[in-house]
């Protein structure tokens, strides 16, 4: 039995975060049905990477990755008939996760107040850029806009240059993580009480919640903390490494460098002096390490319990003995895209399995869901297809 065996989830995801949320639910054993608009499907299908850079709606790395382990159906929730099918699907569902935008479900007559009447134990989770209400709730956004609005962007980059966005779609995964956690909290309550509820995630607020110290620095002292230099990012033979020596790690660092006399050297005796004399210190460190490889430096210092990193690119991840030994990357076959390598389980769950399924084809499970779950006939399916409902 998996953690979420027997839990039914419906997903209406077009902005990656709902997809990330239900991807992890599927990995824990929930049955997830992803509902896509007929025709083009989830916009993620049009985004790469694609094998051999050849765009194809069934070969998008983004879509394939975000939708592992789900069943897929197409449904036009703008049509009356589509809404009727959606309502019938909901009556079997525990959790609905959507990121279509604030007010969208209400405008279709599928708002929480309507659906709650239909399915009182329903958990209805919405992920929106700025929440459902408030002056910015209807702002037009993209990832970089949310990065800016959450305060995160001003904290990231070279202080003498323009601030930087976080790469990729990380902020959407981050929002999906909160929706995942909050939905399971609601499920926890629903299974004890029979009572469902509305769950709302604001991406701006989630990212601001994650802020490290700037808000507290402002509250405490009126400071306006912004992006800053990291003094100990240093070049080595094949790349870069970064030392974040906390005070208690200083003796360990001097030992790892085989420079014990440095430990009580006046120039570097505390954090203030180490950062004031950073150039001198860096030169000394480089004299010991510059001709070594990034991974060797990482291993050596980590084994001495010094907080160190190396700048890992994607190739380094595939070469990582740690990832290899844990079987982190998995090969998942797919009828159109073929076997591809995916990042897999990031946790071990005792003797409970992490489920690795593939992403669905567009509308792949229409017949199965309509006929077997909802009792429609084969002819209904043909008719719905002709009408463009599925």
């Amino acid at each position: 039995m998996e953690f979420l065996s027997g839990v039914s989830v419906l997903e209406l995801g077009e902005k990656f975060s709902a997809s990330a949320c239900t991807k992890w639910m599927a990995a824990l054993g929930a049955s997830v049905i992803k509902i896509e608009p007929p025709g083009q499907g989830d916009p993620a299908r049009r985004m790469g990477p694609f094998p051999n850079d050849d765009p194809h709606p069934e070969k998008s790395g983004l879509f394939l990755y975000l939708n592992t382990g789900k069943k897929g159906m197409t449904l036009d929730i703008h049509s009356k008939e589509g809404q009727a099918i959606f309502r019938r699907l909901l009556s079997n569902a525990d959790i609905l996760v959507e990121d279509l935008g604030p007010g969208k479900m209400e405008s279709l007559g599928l708002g929480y107040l309507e659906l709650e009447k239909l399915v009182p134990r329903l958990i209805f989770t919405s992920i929106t850029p700025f929440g459902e209400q408030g002056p910015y709730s209807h702002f037009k956004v993209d990832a970089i806009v949310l990065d800016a609005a959450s305060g995160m962007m001003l904290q990231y980059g070279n202080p003498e240059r323009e601030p930087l966005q976080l790469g990729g779609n990380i902020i959407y995964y981050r929002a999906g993580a909160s929706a995942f956690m909050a939905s399971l909290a609601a499920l926890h309550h629903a299974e004890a009480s029979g009572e469902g509820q509305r769950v709302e995630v604001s991406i701006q607020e989630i990212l601001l919640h994650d802020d490290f110290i700037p808000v507290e620095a402002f509250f405490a002292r009126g400071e306006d903390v912004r992006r800053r230099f990291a003094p100990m990012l240093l070049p080595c033979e094949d790349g870069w490494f970064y030392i974040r020596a906390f005070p208690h790690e200083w003796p360990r660092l001097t030992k790892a460098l085989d420079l014990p006399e440095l430990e009580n050297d006046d120039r570097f005796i505390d954090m203030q002096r180490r950062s004031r004399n950073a150039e001198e210190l860096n030169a000394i460190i480089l004299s010991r390490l510059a001709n070594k490889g990034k991974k060797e430096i990482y291993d050596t210092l980590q084994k001495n319990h010094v907080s160190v990193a190396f700048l890992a690119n994607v190739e380094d991840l595939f070469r990582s003995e740690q990832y290899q030994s844990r079987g982190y990357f998995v090969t998942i076959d797919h009828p159109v895209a073929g076997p591809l390598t995916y990042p897999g389980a990031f946790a071990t769950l005792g003797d409970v399995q992490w489920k690795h399924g593939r992403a669905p084809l567009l509308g792949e499970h229409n017949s199965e869901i309509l006929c077997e779950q909802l009792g429609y006939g084969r002819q209904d399916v043909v008719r719905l297809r002709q009408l463009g409902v599925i």
Partner: protein
Amino acid sequence: MGNELTSNSKLRILDLSMFWAGAACAGFLGDLGMEVIKIESCQHPDPDRIVTQGLLYLHNELGEEPWNRGMIHLRRHRNKSGITVDLTTPEGKELFLRLVKVSDMVVENFRVGVLEKLGIAYPVLKKVNPQIILISVSSQGDTGPERTYGSNAEILAFTSGVRSISDYPDEIGLFTAANIPDPLAGTVAAGFALAALRHRRKTGKGIHVVLSQRELLTACIGEIVMDYPMNRRIPQPKGNQHSFYAPHGCYPCKGKDSWIALVARDDIEWETLCRAMDRPELINNSRFVGVANRLRHREEVDKVIASWTIHFEKKELMKLLQEKGVPASALFSAPDLVEDPHLKASGFWDRIDDPRPGFGTYLCKGRGVTLSKTPLRTQRRAPDLGEHNQYVYGTLLGLSEQEITELGKKGVIGSAPAPDVMARIPKTLPKARR
């Protein structure tokens, strides 16, 4: 029903975490109404009490007990009680195991191997309480050659690959930012903790869940990682550029370090932007028609925009562009966010009233998640060091007054940091800027 405590109040969580990731996990469970007991020792209090990052103490005052005033501590440990116990002593270990017996879950984020060293690894806990759930928010997972390696948020950003795609295209940035990794891991771990509780309800079995923070972070750039096996391509940093959209980036506004982020994702948004800039002639300029052309002439597009945005105050420009229908936001600073009307209206800020002298009313960041029937409220402020020793050891474990006093005398429990820890607490603080 309708009481946030109905399904959670019977659950007891022991939080052994230090710093952030595990503490965030247990914090969410506390926000949900579970009883969370934060476990520290006088010898090793949570470092955030002692060298609190940025030397941020409430109202910028050290007070008589600075270790109870760290602002990161006050935010991160809301809805927890706090006890002390020195786990390196036999008495301390025994007390902890007695607590495990009457608890449902233990959350920890030690370096892999520390629990074994303390003699409280999962098999030991399981022997004491077969139904116990152990959530390890580890750095690398508990297997593999690097299992004992440590990390913090900055380090994870490097080793996970995230940093390799978040940079300027022309510079290995000598800078840092530590935001997402810890709270991300804490959030996901709390989700796994809730799922593990469900599993226990269904099967009667406890379990040890071990999360790898590094792997989780790589999972959040999964599709980018897949470019390598698909196309043998090592994805490179693109600064603020976007693969499909132009313009896309941040542009200077009036004032020092003042910026606006904006994007035009299609011709309609581009035309809207041109009209907003009062440059309608750009719409039919063949160099900028269609996203492919704009991507090709991206630098030129950026120059045109930057020469326009520089004349505006950032928030004024955000308002103007949003009214016209261009996705845009000012780059908010912390002071901007605290004053922001949207966040005030949405009820983001968490107001905490602490009647004790020198504390008073203060604001903490909210949670970004709302649950309509089981709201996440702050039911109790963050605990002082050892504040709930009496309740936990007396009421919960049934120790006598004398036994508790004895433990205090031996230094197994207490409510003040040990002298060597005390010595690391700053004596003065930087002056407030207002």
